[in-house]
């Protein structure tokens, strides 16, 4: 009898506090599964962010710290520089990473900081109730873009992978999605490689994960996953933007 899938061991067993159908739960498990596969649970330090993604710090069976809004890469820098032989990762949402924390993520990549970042892009601010994010799609209705995001008024969504892959210090950049079982398997492989990038000392690594927020999108969990395929992936193309040898 072989286990095909079970809840990863690097989680501490606490029930997730994400909403029903929120794919943060899938991503959190894939991060933990990658840590399981690499056998690094004893040596990993998780840096949570502000927003729904920050809850990961309460679910990991690793050392963890909760950092201020947008500042996880700076916090992780301090930790990694003091623990160069440990594996340090940040887990940040799109409000955290692509809005308030753009300076920190760009500069962490610029320094070639040997950390791994899991960037969860669900095109909205989840925890605060579904406001517009820099990643919100044009025309997408949120509580602060009630008539749909107007590109003339607040620009078009920011593509962080494309932006960060221009920086020399970034060694691994990939965008994945968790809308189908096949894409989740690819996401796991990318997350694992992003950890390997750090373990091999290659430089900064980031995996952007297109994720669903059924609650704030006003969709059923299944319809939300369909929306990732129909609306998000065309604007945020999946694939590897940068890899290491």
């Amino acid at each position, binding site marked *: 009898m072989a286990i095909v899938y079970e809840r990863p061991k690097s989680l501490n067993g606490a029930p997730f506090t994400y909403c029903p159908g929120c794919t943060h739960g899938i991503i959190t498990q894939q991060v933990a599964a990658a840590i399981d596969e690499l056998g690094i649970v004893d040596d990993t330090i998780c840096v949570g962010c502000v927003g729904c993604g920050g809850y990961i710090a309460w679910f990991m069976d690793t050392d963890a*710290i909760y950092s*201020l809004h947008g500042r996880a890469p700076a916090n992780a820098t301090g*930790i990694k520089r003091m623990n160069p032989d440990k594996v340090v990762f940040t887990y940040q949402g799109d409000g955290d990473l692509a809005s308030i924390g753009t300076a920190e993520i760009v500069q962490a990549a610029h320094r070639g900081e040997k950390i791994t970042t899991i960037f969860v892009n669900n095109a909205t601010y989840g925890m605060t109730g579904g406001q517009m994010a820099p990643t919100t799609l044009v025309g997408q209705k949120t509580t602060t873009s009630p008539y749909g995001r107007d590109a003339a008024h607040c620009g078009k969504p920011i593509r962080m992978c494309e932006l960060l892959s221009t920086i020399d210090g970034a060694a691994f950049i990939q965008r994945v999605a968790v809308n189908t079982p096949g894409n989740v398997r690819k996401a796991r492989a990318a997350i694992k490689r992003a950890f390997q990038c750090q373990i091999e000392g290659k430089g900064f690594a980031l995996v952007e994960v297109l994720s669903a927020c059924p609650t704030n999108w006003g969709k059923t969990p299944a319809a939300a996953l369909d929306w990732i395929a129909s609306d998000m992936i065309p604007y945020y193309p999946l694939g590897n933007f940068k890899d290491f040898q």
Partner: protein
Amino acid sequence: MAKVLMKGNEAMAEAAIQAGCQAFFGYPITPQSEIPEYFARELPKRGGLFLQAESELAAMNMVMGASASGARVMTSTSGPGYCLKLETLAAMTLTRLPAVVVVVMRSGPAFGTMKAAQEDYRMNGNGGYKVVTFAPSNLQEAAEMVYEAFDIADQYRNPVVVMADGMIGQMMEGVDYDKMPPKRTALPPKTWALHGRGARAGKKPQLLFLPDGMGHYGAKHYCETQLYPEIIRNETRVEITDVEDADIVLAAYGTAARMCKNVIRELQGTVRLGMIRPKTLWPFPYEAFEQIGPKCKAIVVPEINIIGQMIDDVRIASAGRWPAHHVGDSQNDFLTPNRIRDKVLAVWEGLQ
């Protein structure tokens, strides 16, 4: 080691390294830039880490990460950067992470000017936290305070701020590093430091958001009702000079207090002056004012700012017993001994 002639900023940086500072994260801003420059030059040679951050904000969050990893860590800045660090400083008081922050005050608000000032007395982040705040008045003291700040931060698991003014940062004076305060013994071990759970007995994972076993309210309640009173009892520092039979008491800190000493000498035989010099702005030495004798008629509070900041605490300590008069400015020649002398004489004449 004999006295060495040093610039204030460099003296504070050297004291930090001698106190075992393992990491410094900073950002350039006048009048403190010699601190990161000194660390950049010296710390790598002495086994430590210097890293220039992209902003004061990021620097402070790097400090938080390094502190969470158990390191003795420091940053320094001036008022505009201190504003940016305060959110993180507040977070570190809640998460109970020690660190040392040196603030070399300049004239604000915001960009302001590069001139020395004492205008950040009341600057605080959110949530009602407290941090020991040293106020050095000469370079020997600045070095000693920075040196001791690391032990105090570790002892209480709470950050310590050393609030110097631009004069202290920029002036040169002799400093004797043989005269540093004794190392505190029996500091609590940093069992909470993040090195991966494998480094901890029983492989118990550590989450640094709140101290173990505490909720948000509980952690905050503990600090406000137990930790801060303990710090007030143990760490309040003040220099009290001749207040028992003074006609007028001067209350001042930092460079302003230094000027007061000239005035006291100059007015010997004219007015009997005493002085209360807080060495810690928090905890503020309220009880020192109970030593003021019955002849005292007024308190004069020289500060390098326009209408006074510390004067509010002096008034609380006075409890209506003595009028408190501000003197000072942050204009061109801000505060001088002559201006303090003139104010004291004016107050004295008004009392006759």
